[in-house]
Structure formats: structure tokens, C-alpha cells
């Protein structure tokens, strides 16, 4: 029996998306040989309980109705009469927290320190994936084309305008580490640059400015890396209602269809997408399931961003597996994973030396 923690929530702008993903995972959770424990993180407190499977429990969330728990080492402790009692030992974790601490490597680091393997990318890939600038630098160094970009200096509007002129309008301003299209603004001319920078900087993580590609469509590809093997999904083409793909387009669409899957693009473009996605995955060292978002403009493919914890864990992009089996694969792979934590394997003798024997560094 594999005990798997489903960690989600966290204080991030994408909290609600995370709840929806987690509820979907719980509904389709595999149960043969796997026991899933939902762990909902909110304001630094961790909760569990079967009621968490119901989306209605979150608006408003009543902490009294759920069991407060703590994760320490591999053991999950439950609060009983204000005392912590060991409850269950976790074998692995499935992360379904989008944005913020859940996706930027913080939660991944916490699990690493506790010695719990998890089903998604490690600290480095998560941290880089969350930071649009860092991801663009790494990915373009590996030979994947990206749109022209620069980082506007919020304190120096003159300089921003100059750089903007160099690239040419229209431009798109994004928070450097946001997700789900929150805080994105398009600027048509020098007049609205200031407002766009302000909108994007509202998330307090810096701003990145890119050339806005006219008539481009958003195409997403998921890459599943399990046991050293990589599987690339077929691409999906997002349907956008306005100039950019908005939060509403993704989660509360006006039409029934959010995307076209498999995308209606020529086979050679699809092959190229697969090639680029694999390069990106290697460059970032992603694990588990990640989704790469590309911009497609005619035959030109540009890397846009990476999601190390994609919405719904991108299960819908792998229909051939079926959600339950897909999750089962992820969880089983994670539970076999050996954590590459450092263990002193040879005796340096340093600790046995008496203080006077230690050489002082000049």
C-alpha cells in the first residue's frame, strides 16, 4: 500500500485553480494499492479530511470542520486535544498547488528536506519554471526560439520606453512569476506602457515585457517524464476571446470549448513542437508532468512559458491513459524514486579532531 499525500492550496493567486485540480484528482484517484491523503495548505496550517473532496467546502472554508495536521519527516501528525499524534507515514506526495509557494520550489524543497519523494519537478526546475525570465534564458540557450523580451525597470520609465521602442509595439506585460494569465496587459503605444507596467507589477515579483505576436495562437504540449522516459502529448490549441488568453478563457469560458484537442495544425508543425518540447524539458530538467506553452505564428514556433504544476495536472492531454491510470503511474513512479540526498559516505575524520588539531585558516 502506497500512502500518497495530495498537497494543494497554499496562499497563491491560483489557490482556487489548485482546489479544482485537487478535487478532480480526488474524484479520479486510483485506490488499488494507493491511499491518497488530501493535505490542504492554507495560511501555514495543514488540513486533512474527506470533506476536502467537495469544492463547496472552500467557500467559505471553515477550519473547524477539518482535522489539522503537521508533516514532520515522513510522518503525518494529527492534532488531538492540542497534542500531535503520529497518524500515517507518507511514501510520496502528489503536488497540485498552482502558483506561489506550491510551484516555485518552496514546497518542493520542504518535501525534499522531509525526505518525501514527489511526482513533479524538483526545486531547480520549479524555481526556474516559475520565473519567466530565467526560463526564457535557459530555454533560448538550448536553442529554442523565444519572442523578443526585456525586463522593464519600474523606477526608470524613460529607459523602459526606449527599450519598448527598440522592440516595437504592441507589447505584452506580464508579472515575472504569475500564472493563469493574471495581471497581464497589452500595450499598443507608449501612452499605456506605464499603466501596463503597474498592472503587471501588482503581483510583486517583477515584470517582463515581450513583443506581442499578432495573430499568434497559443499551443500547449505536455511532457510526462517517468522513470527516465519522456512521453510528449499531442498539442492543444487554446481558444481566446480577446487579444490574449485570459483567466476567463481558461477557467470560465463563454463558449463550451476551451481548446481544440488535438490541435488543428499541420503534422510537420506538430513534430517540431514535440522536438522543441523535449529540448525544453531537458534544458529545465523537469520531472513528472509539465506543460509547455508555445506561441504559433504561421510556421514560427516560440516558447512562451512552462508550467511545472499544470492545471488538472494536464491529465486531459493524455486521454490514452485515462485519468486514474495516469495518476497511478505518476504516484507509483514517485514512490520508487530514490531521493538524491547527501549522505556522508566516507569518514573525513574532521569531527574527531580535537579543537587544537584543527588547522586555522588564515
Amino acid at each position, binding site marked *: *500500500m502506497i500512502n500518497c499525500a495530495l498537497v494543494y492550496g497554499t496562499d497563491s493567486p491560483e489557490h482556487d485553480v489548485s482546489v479544482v485540480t485537487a*478535487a478532480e484528482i*480526488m*474524484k*479520479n*484517484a*486510483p*485506490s*488499488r*494499492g*494507493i*491511499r*491518497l491523503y488530501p493535505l490542504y495548505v492554507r495560511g501555514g496550517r495543514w488540513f486533512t479530511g*474527506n*470533506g476536502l*473532496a*467537495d469544492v463547496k467546502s472552500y467557500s467559505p472554508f471553515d477550519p473547524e*470542520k477539518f482535522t489539522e495536521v503537521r508533516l514532520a519527516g515522513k510522518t503525518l501528525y494529527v492534532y488531538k486535544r492540542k497534542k500531535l499524534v503520529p497518524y500515517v507515514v507518507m511514501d510520496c506526495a502528489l503536488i497540485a498547488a498552482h502558483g506561489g509557494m506550491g510551484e516555485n520550489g518552496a514546497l518542493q524543497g520542504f518535501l525534499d528536506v522531509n525526505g518525501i519523494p514527489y511526482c513533479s519537478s524538483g526545486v531547480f526546475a520549479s524555481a526556474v519554471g516559475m520565473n519567466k525570465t530565467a526560463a526564457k534564458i535557459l530555454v533560448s540557450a538550448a536553442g529554442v526560439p523565444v519572442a523578443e523580451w526585456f525586463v522593464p525597470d519600474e523606477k526608470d520609465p524613460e529607459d523602459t520606453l526606449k527599450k519598448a521602442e527598440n522592440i516595437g509595439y504592441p507589447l505584452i506585460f506580464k508579472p515575472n512569476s504569475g500564472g493563469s494569465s493574471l495581471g497581464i496587459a497589452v500595450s499598443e503605444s507608449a501612452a499605456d506602457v506605464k499603466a501596463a507596467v503597474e498592472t503587471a507589477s501588482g503581483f510583486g515579483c517583477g515584470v517582463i515585457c515581450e513583443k506581442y505576436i499578432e495573430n499568434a495562437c497559443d499551443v500547449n504540449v505536455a511532457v510526462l517524464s517517468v522513470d527516465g522516459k519522456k512521453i510528449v502529448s499531442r498539442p492543444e490549441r487554446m481558444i481566446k476571446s480577446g487579444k490574449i488568453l485570459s483567466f476567463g478563457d481558461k477557467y470560465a469560458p463563454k463558449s463550451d470549448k476551451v481548446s481544440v484537442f488535438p490541435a488543428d495544425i499541420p503534422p510537420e508543425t506538430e513534430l517540431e513542437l514535440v522536438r522543441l518540447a523535449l529540448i525544453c524539458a531537458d534544458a529545465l530538467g523537469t520531472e513528472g508532468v509539465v506543460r509547455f506553452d508555445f506561441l504559433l505564428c504561421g510556421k514560427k514556433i516560440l516558447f512562451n512559458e512552462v508550467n511545472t504544476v499544470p492545471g488538472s495536472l494536464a491529465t486531459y492531454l493524455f486521454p490514452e491513459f*485515462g*485519468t*486514474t*491510470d495516469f495518476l497511478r503511474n505518476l504516484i507509483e513512479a514517485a514512490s520508487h524514486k530514490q531521493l538524491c540526498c547527501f549522505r556522508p559516505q566516507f569518514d573525513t575524520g574532521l569531527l574527531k579532531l580535537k579543537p587544537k588539531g584543527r588547522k586555522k585558516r588564515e
Partner: protein
Amino acid sequence: MLSYVAGGNSKGVAVLFLHGWGGDTSSVEPLRGALESEYMTVSADLYGFGKTPHPDKALTLNDYAAGVKELLDALNIPRAVFVGHSFGGRVAIRTAVLYPDTVSKLVLIDAAGLKPRGAAFKKIRAKIHKILKFFNDRGLRGSSDYEAAEGKLRQTFVSVVNEYQDAEAAALKCGALIVWGARDKATPPYMAKRFRRLIADSELHILPDAGHFAYLDKLPETLMLIKAYIAGE
């Protein structure tokens, strides 16, 4: 034979769903459909409901249990996890008693079968009913299920609801997961607690803000509980 809906992983554990009085396979479809990805799932229309006709004689619980057993034999399923809601719970318990090898685990959701509180009062009420019926050929009104049932099905109803299964529950060896709605009016939560006391190796979960159809009111929670129970050693 009972009409049924089946689907899922033919190599997985078999799970059989039994609907409540007045329901049919579609009433338990939300549960069956969600478990289809991992288990071999079957849900049956019990005699007199859905697509299964009621035979031309009054039935007893034993007949229902025999019908279920016949269906499982026909589908070549030797053992299954039984999930029974309300009246389906009665049938599941009776099947577990008559054919203990068939039921590997038992899930009771707002199940009927226990002797209700105030049974003495009901006996007096039945006497009054008989006396009234002698005079005006109508008597007192029965429960909504009784009024809705017609012909032989009504006779079946009378025979079924007058069987109390307290002793049978105490004799069960398969254990049980008991899921109940805290606001259940038809089979109030005191019955859940009595089931918990009677059935050896049973666990009880009372879901807040849920009624007699607790599994529909709290579908994700019920699914979590059932999955954990079926998978558990």
C-alpha cells in the same frame, strides 16, 4: 434475470451496486461511473424497478437475494463488494447472510433493515388501520413508498419492510463501511449507530448536511470513503 448495467476493468475487483426502493440503476450511476476506471462495476435493477419486471407473486427479501446471486453467477463473478443504498442495503445484508462467500465487503449507505424506534406504536397503528379498513374499505394512509407501489409490488413492500434484520447484521462476517447522512429522515442516523454496534469490524461515517441520499449530497466524500475502504486490507 435482473437487468443490469456493467462496465469497467474486467480484471479488477467486482463491485455491485444495489439501489433503494423506487430507484433503479440510474440512481446509483454517479457512484458506479466514478469507480468504473478501476473496478469491474455492476449495478442491478431489482425486481419491480427499472427494466426488471416484478414477477406475478409477492416477493420476500430472500427472493431479492436469490435474484442478485443469480445475476452474479450469470456474469461469472464469484465474489463482489456490495454497495447498498436504503432498500438495496437490506438486500445486500440478506445476500451476505444467505450466500456469505459472495460478499467480500459491504458498504451500507443510509441502509434500511433495522427495527425502527417506536415499533410498538406502529403495531397499534396497524390495528387501527385494520379496524378502519373493516368499516370504510380504505384505512389509514401508508408511507409514500407504500402508496406509490401497486399490485404485487405493494404486497412485496409490506413483506419486506416488516422483516427486521438486526440479528442478521450481528451475524455478518464481512465487516462493513457505513456511510450516513446526518439529516436522513427516512432511516435516521440512530440506525447507522446501531449498525455500527451490531456489525463486527465496521466503520461509521456520518456526513454532515446530507440526507437520505447521502451519496448524492456528498458524492466526492462518499467516493473517497468507498475507494479507501475497498482498497484497504
